[in-house]
């Protein structure tokens, strides 16, 4: 991977060598997907807190116009 961070002629060089940044990149992606899941899916198609509907009802309108299936 180290060769990727070497100077290149392209206008934007590789600035984030994946080997070193992998923890941050993967961690961020996981958090982002979790947020996506709670805004769009939980207490609808799936529910990890049982029958509670607070999140669903709170973000309900957002769910509809962000394109998620709802009721």
């Amino acid at each position, binding site marked *: 991977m180290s060769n990727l961070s070497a100077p290149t002629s392209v206008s934007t060089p590789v600035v984030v060598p994946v080997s070193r940044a992998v923890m941050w990149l993967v961690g961020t992606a996981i958090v982002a997907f979790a947020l996506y899941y709670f805004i769009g899916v939980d207490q609808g198609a799936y529910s990890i807190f049982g029958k509670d509907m607070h999140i669903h*009802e709170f973000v309900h309108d957002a769910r509809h116009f962000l394109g998620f299936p709802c009721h």
Partner: protein
Amino acid sequence: MERKLILRGALAGAAAGLIAFVFARIFAEPQIQAAIDYESGRDAAQHELDHAAGLPVEHAGHEIFSRTLQANLGAGAGIVLFGVAMGALFAVAYAICLGRVGKLRPRNLAMLVALAGFLGVYFVPFLKYPANPPSIGHEDTIHDRGNLYLAMVACSIVLLIGAVLLGKRLQPRFGNWNATLLAIAAYVAIIGVLMAVLPSVGQLAANVEEFGRHATETPLPLTDEKGTIVYPGFDADRLYAFRLYSVGAQVLLWGALGLIFGPLAERLLQPRKANTEHPEPVHNA
């Protein structure tokens, strides 16, 4: 560097989400309210029919949050947090793409990643399973609808990444322009087959059983036992307006995300130009 990019992505996403929310609050919210009113009216009409037929009448559960809270605070929080999530994901994709996808200015790359996000996360899935206002969608099918939608989102994102990789592989042989066109063609062909193969929501077993064969779950007119229409079907113009505004909100969200993130990233990356001869190993933010 990656931490600085992710932070900027999340902030740009929050700002973009706020812009999309203001748009949605003005244009989409009245459509949602009208759809909820339609639903209540339809439920009342259904109750009367059931009552006349001597069937047990279902009563709707109580509401947890008021409509005012849902339409303002709830919708706002939902869209802004969606913006933050997409901004963070955007920054991850951007960091990986930096320097690996040809000669692009940081700003132009930001717009391309935003376009990819719009298409992959929202618009391509929308083409098969479009956004629906309240009252469209049956409770019994939410599990299947949810799965189909998520499958569509996952496939469109994965295929989009595949198309970029394919384009990169074809580029040395066919040149930039033709390689891009070939990659797009491959993406469209595969996603087209996928859309043709996946069932539309109206074809789900629970729907066919209860309502017969229809393409969608959009409510048809409610009729009594003589076939007289006692309550109209869902207004087609309202459905169109809702979907148009839904697309509009996403165009705004991803467009603003790219436009805000681009200059931020450029400013972050520009100082490095001075010493590209001896680039520092990645700084930790």
